[in-house]
């Protein structure tokens, strides 16, 4: 069985925060205690959407030491393949779901003298659990949080009320922009940067930090990619000797699993590297979307990350 260990939970609260974001609270069905976790961890939520089983990662935003419940916040993506829409529209209080044990690909570097957090939009969620972890240990942190508008600023009120001196909020519609160069320039030695948000923001922060001479190890980022829909294609699985059609609204990994083939995975968002698969033969073009493989590996035609990447063409044979 692939992926992390599973936990059966019941939805005990469903709280709309604004036009796009809804918060869900999960408690264990058996009444036991949930595992503790580290700030920045995510869980993979399993959703039975008709014939398709969707497994989407969401950052845990609750107190990592609270073993009674986990909470996640889900931003509705009207253009996506339906995972967030399913949670928003079809999951209600009382429903049971299966989620994975916490997995952390965005953990705090506990050597840091100061943690400088930069969030964009729904990218705020991992910082909420990290802040709770740091507060308990009297850690030194500072948050810079960019939102589209006051109306869409999830948890702005909570953060500015509880931590008025550590939280800085920027609204796009008021033309407020993080003064990144000055911000990075003024940090004490031993500061680590954490950025979670849209790809453009991550690239901006990483690029600026590199230009200013920050060590690569002091810059941490996380961006989960949702698999994107695309043209249907056919894949041959050489080891299991199966030919599978990948549907328009389905990822390659989901199609492999639907065929009954147990493929390894963890994050399902192109970040962790677990599902890396060797390409045996192909005639066509890869649509690589992961953060895991290097550019030369993408160009080589020898590997693919089936959780987020697709293929267009005649023949694709995988070592699976």
């Amino acid at each position, binding site marked *: 069985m692939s992926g992390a260990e599973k936990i059966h939970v019941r939805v005990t609260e469903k709280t709309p925060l604004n036009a796009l974001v809804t918060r869900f609270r999960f408690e264990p069905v058996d009444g036991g205690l949930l595992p503790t*976790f*580290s700030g920045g961890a995510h869980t993979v939520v399993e959703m039975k959407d008709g014939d398709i089983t969707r497994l989407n990662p969401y950052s845990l935003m609750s107190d990592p030491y609270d073993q009674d419940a986990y909470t996640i916040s889900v931003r509705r993506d009207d253009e996506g393949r339906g995972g967030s829409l399913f949670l928003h529209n079809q999951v209600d209080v009382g429903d049971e779901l299966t989620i994975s044990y916490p997995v952390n690909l965005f953990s705090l570097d506990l050597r840091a003298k100061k943690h400088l957090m930069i969030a964009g939009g729904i990218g705020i969620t991992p910082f909420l659990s990290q802040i709770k972890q740091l507060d*308990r240990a009297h850690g030194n942190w500072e948050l810079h949080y960019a939102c589209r508008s006051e109306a869409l600023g999830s948890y702005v009120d909570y953060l500015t009320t509880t931590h008025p001196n550590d939280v800085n909020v920027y609204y796009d519609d008021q033309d407020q922009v993080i003064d990144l160069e000055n911000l990075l320039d003024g940090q004490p030695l031993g500061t680590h940067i954490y950025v979670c948000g849209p790809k453009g923001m991550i690239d901006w922060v990483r690029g600026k930090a590199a230009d200013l001479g920050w060590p690569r190890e002091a810059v941490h980022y996380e961006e989960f990619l949702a698999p994107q829909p695309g043209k249907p294609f056919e894949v041959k699985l050489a080891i299991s000797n199966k030919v599978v059609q990948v549907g328009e609204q389905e990822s390659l990994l989901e199609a492999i699993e639907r065929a009954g083939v147990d493929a390894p995975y963890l994050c399902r968002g192109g970040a962790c590297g677990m599902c890396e698969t060797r390409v045996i033969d192909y005639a066509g073009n890869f649509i690589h979307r992961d953060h895991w493989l290097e550019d030369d590996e993408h160009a080589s035609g020898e590997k693919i990350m089936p959780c987020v990447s697709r293929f267009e063409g005649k023949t694709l044979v995988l070592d699976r």
Partner: protein
Amino acid sequence: MTIQFNDETFRDDYSFHNSERAIKRFPFPFDKDSYMYAVNMEQHRGGPADSVYEKRFDVDEHYVSEMRDRAQVLADDPLRCQSLPHMTLAGWDVLELIMTCKAEDYPDLFELHRDGDRWRWINKPLGIDDTFTFLDETTLPYGPMEYITRQTQGDFAVLDQRDDNLWMDAGMVTTQADWSLDFDIGMNFFEWHAPVPLAHEKGIFVRALKFLLNIQQGAPARRLNWTMTVNPLLDTSPENYHKWGIQKTTLTPQNIGAKQHLRVELQTFFRLPRSNGLVFPIRCYLCAFQDLMTVPKWGRRLHRVIRDLPEELATYKGFIDNRPMMLDYLSQFDDGLPTSNGIWPDLETEPPLQK
């Protein structure tokens, strides 16, 4: 099963001994008649009843005496236990993991009572009954990792995970096969494995690291490793090589059966939930050649493995000079019959020695 704890020593008069039960449950590390490095990992989720795999942290008849030996090593050399400043949270993770596992797996020996952050820990074999505040170091006599690993058999490497690598940033190391925490502290996975021959070229460490980085909460893993030790010494450290290295020259054809020990490490790997670090317990089991030879399958197999082992490995494991004498001894127990697959003794099904 109730455990009778031995009163024994791992130094000076070497009164260490294995009972018949301890011999049968010895983790013999060879699953076939030859040996080469492999990433031989499997899930650590129990195993046959009374085997060393059954519990998450095996407690056996040597427990009390091993803890006494550890206290002696630490008194002589406090640098055997170290924890860099950012590893305290991981130390609490280790304490929580061991206390909860032992209290669940050995309720007659260990008890953990939790009332919020106020914890009471009872260790009956060592006569300990302490109440402390979880996550408050000032309420324990030692740091959290040192406190609990003074009460747990095996060495402990506590690893920080960052930059797609693992870092040896804390540990309790007093029963090691010739490596030094004081030397390795702060090193990454490739740095501390640099002295191992052949495995780098085979790409073993790149694959092993990838596996370890992906070990998840609730899904621990394990493997066996092995070497050879003359006399039942737990502390075969580089720091004390001048004391034990010379003992390798004391083997004779008359005493080899009693003095030469196969040293096996049960290595386990647990993801630590609060720190996202990894703990790597390395549990040492010793068994004299003459005790191993009471299991016919192990007698046949050990002879073949040692005979065919590449020279580099026999050198690295430190017994190249004694190998001819070992083979003279072991060959008496190899009648050439085939052996069954797997590590278990198979006493009921494997024939007795035919010579």
